[in-house]
């Protein structure tokens, strides 16, 4: 029988996934494709916000959407109605997407000839934060009914995101939601976080968010910094 030996590994459980994610980003840079990873709780209004974002940017960019869900294709069907390319990714019971699954999705959707691909991650504030998908930017949505204390309860996701979209601000008068508190708690976790309060229903604040996204896509794809008006 072979001799038993101990092999030291001493690296993070996520190290292989992180390396794979870096490879994906290199490929995206070559193909001039911007990948946005969008995360949130279930019911935060992700799909609605996405549809409004697509409407604002579809004349500018070739857009694709990858909808990740444990099952069903309800969301991909809704997105397909906006006229952009969309696919449904099923994680088969898993609570997050990792770099490997994202790469398969990018191939399937034909990302190399798209300018902007949005990955709608599984509705969950815990697991997706641990797995780098290879996205260029990470965004999360926090809706008003969820409450302003979420950055205290789920700190990790706030540290990995570049953008926090506070959605459904049109219903703020009916909830005990303190916009200043959420800003304070979120910036405490991540001082570099960009925060956009929006209502996809009334359109309030949507311009600032889509402008930000437009600038990011142009910078990544062309290396051009556009002046914001």
């Amino acid at each position, binding site marked *: *029988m*072979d001799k038993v030996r101990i*092999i030291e590994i*001493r690296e993070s459980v996520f190290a*292989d*996934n992180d390396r794979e994610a870096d490879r994906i980003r290199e490929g995206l840079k070559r193909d001039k494709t911007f990948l946005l990873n969008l995360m949130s709780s279930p019911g935060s209004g992700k799909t609605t916000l996405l549809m409004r974002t697509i409407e604002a940017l579809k004349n500018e960019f070739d857009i694709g959407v990858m909808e990740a869900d444990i099952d069903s294709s309800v969301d991909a069907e809704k997105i397909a109605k906006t006229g952009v390319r969309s696919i449904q990714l099923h994680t088969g019971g*898993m*609570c997050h997407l990792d770099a490997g699954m994202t790469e398969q999705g990018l191939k399937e959707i034909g990302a190399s000839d798209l300018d902007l691909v949005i990955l709608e991650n599984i509705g969950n504030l815990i*697991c997706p934060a*641990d797995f780098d998908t290879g996205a260029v930017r990470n965004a999360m949505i926090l809706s008003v009914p969820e409450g302003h204390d979420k950055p205290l309860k789920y700190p990790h996701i706030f540290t990995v995101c570049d953008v926090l979209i506070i959605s459904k601000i049109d219903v703020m008068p009916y909830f005990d939601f303190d916009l200043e508190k959420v800003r304070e708690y979120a910036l405490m976790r991540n001082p570099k976080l960009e925060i956009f309060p929006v209502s996809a229903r009334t359109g309030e604040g949507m311009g600032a968010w889509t402008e930000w996204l437009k600038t990011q896509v142009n910078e990544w794809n062309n290396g051009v910094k556009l002046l914001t008006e």
Partner: protein
Amino acid sequence: MHELGIVFHIIKTVERVGEENGLSAVSKVTLELGEVSGAIPRELIDCWNWAVRKSELLKGAELVIETIPAVTLCESCSQTYETVRYGRICPNCGSDLTYLVQGNEMNLKEIQAC
């Protein structure tokens, strides 16, 4: 389920290491797990015992978990304290300018194999 995804990633890494080192069977995998890493040891082991049955290399391998205690540092008084016991507010001076210095780890430490 969060733990199952983590277990799949550990298995994938160990299989890569196994291939690189020409291993034929892995009998033990040691994981260093921070107290506030968000993964529950008992759940990890349950998922592990189910998942390794599907791996040629890891069939019957044991998952050993070593806990790393969570420690928070207070910026106001420069003292450290136990995170799990006191949370975000410093028990020494009452400040909330605190951050975690260790306890969030999820590291693959070593494997025993032949």
